[in-house]
């Protein structure tokens, strides 16, 4: 039935192979052995979602559980969605074609605030009411990922949130729900059972409260036994936690033709705008022999030419050079997705270049030393130049530079600094080569978005006028063909801030925006700021209240979510930022007392080798 309907649709959609499943290394269990179905739902298009490592790990763990079938599902592109609605084909798991409504759990990952409307749309496409309170029975809709660190804006749509790392808790959730099915627990019984587990937030058992003056005072449990704050989960033994031996390999070309291993988790560099750098602490590494063995196994089982060594700062891995050498020795390419701005990182990039002509990516983030100190991007002007010199002397022709504008305390002078830097790098290239014929400097200019659980969570965004003035200033100054300036859409950044910093009151606006047709908001061709403005207005949400600066004593909508990093630390860091004072990486220098190590009773991580 499913395939019959699909066969009529697929000839009429773009990239039909997104929707067929049948990829290499998929796990399909005989139907009679399956007693529990878990859908791993990625609220964006197939090519983006298939490379997401978190789902590779969960897919493997779930499918190793007897009786459990994990399947993947992605957001259908609008052409496919239209055809599915036309022919009443409900959204389905790619492995067996089972409609999502027949699953026991649907687990979304919240990678990006601008994917929230896609969650509602995917549920609706499956015939499931997007509003949690109107749902009955199974499936339960759960969500995890960085977005869950402020769950409130999507709390109306999600039954339970996983706060923190999912590797261990996912099987606990499956067991709880599976037992609930056996013992005849109803939906609320199952959710109550989940609510008592560490690291699970069930919004229906928590309510927002205001004081007598109507001011928000926080989110509180409605039952006294439930924890006041939900502490994030971390894997007990990250270094030795078993890793997948194979991952699903897409049939449609994805962003990168590579498999990846996570070499370390967490980052203590302490960039003050960076949410990942705060919420994934503490820093932990996997041992070299484990990574070499798993890397080679994955390369073989995926038939991939390239291994990605993934982490928030790959050059910080203690034995990075030995690791690269060990993989290359077996005849494979290596890629390092996130490098620091220094000459050591350029050396590493040089090691892994393997004849490719791709550009070198550096992210100084701010154009002046003053502002780099404010954001704690511990990169000095001379680091940038030594890195660029090393790159140019080694024959790199294309430099990709990432910057942010609209940062706290930023002035136009700081933004001029970005242009000055780009021009100075052009001069440096000319000094080395005598010309700039083959040089290209691409500048990716994004707009600062304040994110929960970061030192900049209190900071405001700049106005539309200020952002556009700064964007224009850069475009004007860097008109030469040597430079390519790419700027983000300010409206998207504003919406991102609203959705990132919102409370439960945002649910109504998200719902209305979806009803008006918003989806794929991160895709400029689908983003509809006009519809979003209507939805926010109808929901009575004043965007300015979320994009502006917040007082330091404000009660934050995510106060009940405990990521281990203390609010005191974040506040201290914010104050240091405003004073232009930096804080060094604790894995190389003194402890900065962020609170994570005592929170999880782990010993502070110290680098074995310092580079």
């Amino acid at each position: 039935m499913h395939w019959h309907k699909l066969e009529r649709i697929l000839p009429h959609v773009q990239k039909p192979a997104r929707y067929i499943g049948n990829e290499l290394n998929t796990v399909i269990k005989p139907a009679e052995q399956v007693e529990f179905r878990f859908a791993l739902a990625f609220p964006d298009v197939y090519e983006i979602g298939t490379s997401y490592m978190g789902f590779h790990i969960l897919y493997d763990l779930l499918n190793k559980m007897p009786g459990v079938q994990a399947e993947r599902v992605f957001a259908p592109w609008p052409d496919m969605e239209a055809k599915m609605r036309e022919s009443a084909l409900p959204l389905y798991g790619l492995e067996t074609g089972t409609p999502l409504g027949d699953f026991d759990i649907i687990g979304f990952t919240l990678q990006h605030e601008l994917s929230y409307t896609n969650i509602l749309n995917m549920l609706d496409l499956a015939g499931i009411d997007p509003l949690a309170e109107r749902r009955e029975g199974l499936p339960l809709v759960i969500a995890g990922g960085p977005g869950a660190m402020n769950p409130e804006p999507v709390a109306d749509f999600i039954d339970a949130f996983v706060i923190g790392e999912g590797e261990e808790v996912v099987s606990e959730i499956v067991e709880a729900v599976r037992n609930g099915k056996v013992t005849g627990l109803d939906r609320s019984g199952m959710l109550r059972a989940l609510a008592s587990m560490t690291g699970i937030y069930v919004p229906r058992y928590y309510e927002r409260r205001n004081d007598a003056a109507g001011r928000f005072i926080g989110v509180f449990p409605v039952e006294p036994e439930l924890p006041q704050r939900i502490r994030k989960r971390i894997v007990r033994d990250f270094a030795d936690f078993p890793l997948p031996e194979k991952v699903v390999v897409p049939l449609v070309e994805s962003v990168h033709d590579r498999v990846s291993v996570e070499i370390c988790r967490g980052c203590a560099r302490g960039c003050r705008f960076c949410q990942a750098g705060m919420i994934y602490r503490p820093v932990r590494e996997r041992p070299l022999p484990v990574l070499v063995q798993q890397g080679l196994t994955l390369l073989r089982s995926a038939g991939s030419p390239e291994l990605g060594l993934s982490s928030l700062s790959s050059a910080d891995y203690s034995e990075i050079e030995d690791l690269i050498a060990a993989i290359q020795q077996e005849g494979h390419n290596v890629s390092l997705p996130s490098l620091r701005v220094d000459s050591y990182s350029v050396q590493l990039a040089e090691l892994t270049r393997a004849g490719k002509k791709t550009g070198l990516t550096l992210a100084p983030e701010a154009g002046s030393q003053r502002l780099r100190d404010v954001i704690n991007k511990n990169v000095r002007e001379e680091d940038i130049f030594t890195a660029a010199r090393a790159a140019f002397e080694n024959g790199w022709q294309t430099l990709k530079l990432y910057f942010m504008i609209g940062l706290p305390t930023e002035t136009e002078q700081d933004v001029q600094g970005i242009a000055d830097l780009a021009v100075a790098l052009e001069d440096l290239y000319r000094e080395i080569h005598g010309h700039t014929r083959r040089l290209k400097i691409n500048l990716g200019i994004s707009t600062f978005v304040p994110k929960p659980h970061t030192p900049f969570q209190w900071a405001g965004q700049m106005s539309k006028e200020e952002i556009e003035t700064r964007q224009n200033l850069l475009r004007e100054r860097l008109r030469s063909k040597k430079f390519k300036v790419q700027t983000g859409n300010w409206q998207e950044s504003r919406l991102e801030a609203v959705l990132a910093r919102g409370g439960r009151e945002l649910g109504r606006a998200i719902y209305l925006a979806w009803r008006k047709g918003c989806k794929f908001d991160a895709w400029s061709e689908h983003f509809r700021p006009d519809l979003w403005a209507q939805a926010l207005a109808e929901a009575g949400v004043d965007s300015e209240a979320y994009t502006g600066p917040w007082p330091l004593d404000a009660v934050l909508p995510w106060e009940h979510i405990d990521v281990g990093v203390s609010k005191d630390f974040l506040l201290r860091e914010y104050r240091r930022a405003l004073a232009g004072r930096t804080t060094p990486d604790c894995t190389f220098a003194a402890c900065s007392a962020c609170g994570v190590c005592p929170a999880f009773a782990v010993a502070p991580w110290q680098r074995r080798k310092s580079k």
Partner: protein
Amino acid sequence: MRVVLQYTKQGAMKYVSHLDFQRLWRRLFRMADIAVANTQGFNPLPRMRFAAPLPTGFASCNELMEVFLAAAMDLDELLGQLNRFTPQGMDILAATPVPDSFPKLTALVDALEYSVELPECRVLPSAVEDCVPDGSTAWQQFVLAAELHGRRWRLLLASIEQKTLRPDVLVRQFFPEFDHVAIIRTGIFTRNRNIKPVPQGLSLLID
């Protein structure tokens, strides 16, 4: 070692584009740990060639590709190794070793045969009968045979200097009332009678 492989691309696999399918082949060889010789040049790629690209959405029970293995190996083992990894709908049926002097596979293809499954029985419009084997219009020169047997329409379409006619063009022209028609490529033909050996899956075209 140069080898011609005969394989199928059916079921869900028919929706995989030619480019993605080429990538899949490279992957399969790596998964099976069979080294393929690389092309020369600035951006070396595993040396393989496909007889005739199959448009996305068409199935085939008879595709051909050639590959240059880095080292000689037993062909049964080659088939066994590769078939361990092929996704459902893709089977590698036969491997024929050919000498290095063998013509390029792409240059050998003179005609492609398709079977079109119509949803209902039809009588072939006389226009098609008339046009065979007349070559007076742009598309007619490609139609070598067009026989309708009940619901099954056999088309033999010429491939002239690697240009050919898509069978769905003829379906739209003569049976515009059907919006869903299954098309399967069933054969690859050559006029060249001097090749030795004749790879399995390549048929001789007798005019």
